[in-house]
């Protein structure tokens, strides 16, 4: 599984232990990170002040984050110091139908950020690294889908069976292929609408 972590590099010293905890849980669960900006931000912080973001190539950073979200299966957003970028990426991920876990040490109940409800968005509060790790592990497990082919029983009526048999005969494709293609067409159609 590919995970993208979004966070705020401006408060790196404060957030770093928690960002490392997120990385640790991701790796412990056999997942990989789509774009590791945390190490780059750490290196940047060694040579510059934490507040000095002026020499970062923001065009590239934004483009790479956008691509990383597209590649990722799930998104984790550390939103304790939330602002425009966290909102932008949350929205972008949800529109691409990616499950998003938004974690924060701030109490955001009653704030606008808490009012954004979406079936793929889970907002959780945490206090400690242990607490954070539990929330993350649960989210990753809940969204882990085996990458190998999945099997399940499929009950159909006579009309659908006759249709599948006929199309299978005409095209030389097996019934599973036909159903898969129909579903893929439907997914394409929904994504374009």
């Amino acid at each position, binding site marked *: 599984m590919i995970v993208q972590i979004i966070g705020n590099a*401006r408060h790196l010293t404060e957030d770093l232990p928690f960002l490392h905890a997120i990385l640790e849980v991701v790796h412990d669960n056999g997942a990989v990170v789509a774009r590791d900006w945390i190490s780059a931000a750490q290196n940047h912080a060694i040579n510059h002040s934490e507040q000095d*973001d002026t020499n*970062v190539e923001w065009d590239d950073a934004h483009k790479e984050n956008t691509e990383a979200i597209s590649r990722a299966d799930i998104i984790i957003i550390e939103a304790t110091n939330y*602002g425009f970028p966290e*909102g932008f990426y949350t929205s972008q991920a949800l*529109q691409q139908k990616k499950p998003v876990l938004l974690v924060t040490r701030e109490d955001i109940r009653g704030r606008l950020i808490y*009012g954004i409800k979406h079936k793929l968005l889970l907002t959780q509060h945490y206090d400690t690294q242990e607490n954070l790790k539990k929330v993350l592990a649960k989210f990753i497990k809940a969204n882990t889908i085996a990458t190998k082919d999945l099997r399940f029983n499929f009950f159909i009526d006579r009309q659908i069976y006759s249709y599948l048999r006929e199309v299978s005969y005409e095209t030389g494709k097996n019934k599973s292929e036909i159903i898969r293609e129909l579903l893929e067409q439907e997914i394409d159609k929904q994504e374009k609408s």
Partner: protein
Amino acid sequence: MKMHVIGSLREFDDDIDFIRTILKTLRDNRVLLAHNWVDAAADRRKRQAGHQETSFDWQELVDTNISILKEVDALIVEGSRFNYSQGFQTAIALQNKKPVLNLYREDLPEYKEWPDKLFVSGISHPLFTSKPYKTQEDLEKIVGEFIDGLSAKTHELDIKLALDAPAYEKLDQPLRARVKAERAL
């Protein structure tokens, strides 16, 4: 043409005149405003001095904004305060292929301290424009130019439509039920 304007409630008293200038420029250019939340927000502030952000029904507000974004032609953001909601709505608008104009006052002390301005400067989307302003005159000029740019791409066509009897009947039924206008159908 129809547009949606968003801003921040954080320093609303400082921003309101600028937001109103945006709305006035839209009116002067015959652009419809999708939702006038500004007067309601100003009125609420007057009535509830020291009001809490927690007293709003944020979910309803977010849902309203999302549905508006899908129906408008463009989004204008008074973005001097760079908040989460503005980021969220900007991404929705761009995803729905709606041009976004982000406006900010770079002479605000807060702006100079704000890290999000750098992030915003990195959004290299063809439909995203970010411009600084200082005065209300600057705003009128920038918003006016934004509208002109969009108007050049928007064409209203008048066409004659010949319908046969069954098609006319289908059109006429909802009209009589006053569900929709002919144009909308």
